[in-house]
Every structure is written in C-alpha cells, then in structure tokens.
C-alpha cells in the first residue's frame, strides 16, 4: 500500500508500515494515525516520540512488553502500564504507535 501526502506518494508495506524511514514527518504521522482511527493528542505524541528516540538509540522497535517497561522507566508507572497505553492505542501500543512513528513493525510481533 501507499500514503498520499501533499501530492507525494509514500510507499508502505501491506500492513501500512512505511518502507523508507527517512521520509517520515509529523504530517505523515497524522495521516497514518487517521487510517488507524486515532486523533493525535499530546499523549499520543509523547509515546510516538519516545519510540522514535528508542529506535534512534537501539535501532530496534520494541515489542509491547518491552515498550511498557521502557515507558515505565522513562515516564513513570502512571504511563508505563497496559491500560494507559492500550487506551491511547487500542490495537496495540507497539504495533500502532510504531506505524505512526514511521518505524518498522516491532521485533517479536507476529
């Protein structure tokens, strides 16, 4: 599949993960989020930005279990828990937030 943004075509795989990580920007993130029925607010952005930082540092998109632990470490236990993250991203915080963040599908997700 592909996304259409400001007249440009952005390639993505069959599940909607963009294939060229370098073309990501915030407008594209909003467009991907729309497809996922997510209206991006500050809390969504916080997780998306956290994932981008995590990828930048470790070159890996974490699986949900690891994401929750890492968020807990960085933002505290009010945010680093299943309920909070699944409320933001109902179809899986790692899967959906990684897609919006322009990262590959998390390693360890099937």
């Amino acid at each position, binding site marked *: 599949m592909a996304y259409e943004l400001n007249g440009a075509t952005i390639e993505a795989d069959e599940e909607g993960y963009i294939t060229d990580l370098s073309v990501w920007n915030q407008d594209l993130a909003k467009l991907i989020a729309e497809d996922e029925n997510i209206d991006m607010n500050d809390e969504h952005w916080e997780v998306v930005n956290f994932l981008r930082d995590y990828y930048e540092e470790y*070159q*890996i998109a974490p699986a949900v279990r690891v994401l929750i632990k890492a968020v807990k470490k960085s933002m505290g236990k009010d945010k680093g828990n299943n309920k909070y993250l699944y409320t933001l991203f109902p179809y899986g915080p790692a899967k959906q937030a990684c897609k919006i963040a322009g990262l590959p599908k998390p390693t360890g997700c099937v």
Partner: protein
Amino acid sequence: MSDIPEEASGIVKKFLYVNRKAPHGTIYALESLEVVLIGAAFEQDVSLAFLDDGVFQLVKGQDTADIGVKNFSPTYRALGDFEVTKLYVEKESLAERGLSKDDLMEIMYEDEDDDWEEKPSIKLVNRTELAAVMAGQDVILSF
C-alpha cells in the same frame, strides 16, 4: 502480538545462542540477534555466547555506512530491556584477534532483584569456563 501473560508460561529451559561469525559479512549475526529478541517473549532463561569471529559483533564504534548494510550493533544494548542479561565472551577469542574488553561496547542491564542497580551484561570467560556454561544448557543454537 507476542504478549504472553506470565501465568500462561510453562517450563523454563536454559537456551544458549552461540555466535561465531563476524557481524556484517553474512546474515548469521543479525539472524541470531532477531531470534534472541523474538524468543525473549517466551520468558526462557536465555544466554548468549560470543567466540571465534563472533566477538567482533560486540566491538564498539561500528560504522557500516560504506558497506550499505544496517548497523545493528546498538541493538545489543537493548537486550537488557528484553531480560537477556548474560553475554559470555570468550577471552581466548578476544586475545587471538588483538582485542580486549575495552574494545567492546558497554552493555548494561538493571537487576530487578537488587534495587534496579545497573550491572554489566558482558562476562568474560575462558575456554574451560565457556565449556561448562555450554554443558549446563538445555538447548544450544549455533549461528
């Protein structure tokens, strides 16, 4: 998603992933790392061993820009998040390649049982000690 609740986990076995090849000339090192990360979701007792040219996988300051492949070496530093905290590196293999512990990346984990204190994941062992580690495993996967 591979989000398996703890109560659903069964028998815990000791898995050792043996890495013996240089990181970027073949696919073995990356494949091994990906299997380790995926396997970590199953909450087994996982260790990694690095010997022969496999010790090069942990060398710090790797730069793959000129060979057109992804530099996945930073990912070893995320292993602690996956609760993979035992990385055995064979001393003889390092010495034979003119390497020392200072040439390797610093890989840390937080010890849940010790007030989350940061501890090094890399453990230098000699050939005899590594043989003992291998003898104590249930499953050994060689890459």
